[in-house]
């Protein structure tokens, strides 16, 4: 199945093409793949993060489906 993946800020450097940038990359994933599986596959660091699927918040255990748009945002400190 095809899923678009958007990584914000410094997470974008973990896109498989290594080119950074916040534009979506399309991943070809196995049925049943969860968000946690994608995070592990990308090797994202264990840092605070907020996850959206199709512009709605989603938990890491969510199973992705064809056509989903997964976005992961790491808030940074300062306020």
């Amino acid at each position: 199945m095809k899923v678009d993946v958007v990584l914000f800020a410094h997470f974008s450097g973990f896109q498989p093409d290594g080119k950074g940038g916040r534009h979506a990359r399309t991943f070809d994933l196995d049925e049943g793949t969860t968000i946690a599986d994608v995070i592990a596959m990308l090797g994202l660091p264990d840092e605070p993060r907020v996850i959206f699927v199709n512009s709605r918040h989603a938990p890491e255990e969510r199973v992705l489906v064809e056509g989903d748009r997964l976005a992961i945002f790491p808030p940074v400190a300062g306020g």
Partner: protein
Amino acid sequence: MDDTNRAPDLTDLRPHRPEHVEVEVPETTLDPALRARLRTCTVAIIGCGGLGSNVAEMLVRSGIGRLTLVDFDTVDERNLNRQFFFRDQIGAPKVVALAENLQRIRSDVRLDLVAERATHDNLLGIVRGACAIVEAVDDADVKAMILNTCLTELPDMPLVTASGLAGYGSTNAIVTERMAENLYVVGDLTSDVRDGHPLFASRVMAAAAAQAHAVVRVLLGYLEP
């Protein structure tokens, strides 16, 4: 001492201070129904430091009716370079000092003060009934907790967060983005105080102004930043 070096005494030049002063956008430029809408709204501000104290000031001046102010901390000397506090408030709880300052601007603003650390357990109770939430804490873990909790449990409540406001970078890099359906993110997304970037009043307040304006826009019905 030479009198010419002294600061002039302006006491007698201060005009009469009326009891009630109307502080909001004038009716001549904002529809009364929209002014009334702002007056009926409650905005919860989580964190009353560099972002939150300045967001609160701007929302009060914009005519928001009620604010919930949340912060566990006290005013410190090191806060005065960017936060809306004064020297004689050092040591006071931030929510108390901020309430004093806001009521000096607009005596009729309604304020609910929560002198506690926002946690996963108390957050929903604190923000219940608000029209919008402003995330204005400094710690990245707590930011993520607030976003994850509110977006999960209150997905229809607008939430304005900030990420990336430290350092010398141009304020032009601070943007407001609707990252998800009800999530507005202000900042450059990258400049992190943990990387040793300083916090300048000018840049922090630029982010605070963008947060406050995002709230005003959303409350007026403009959903795009």
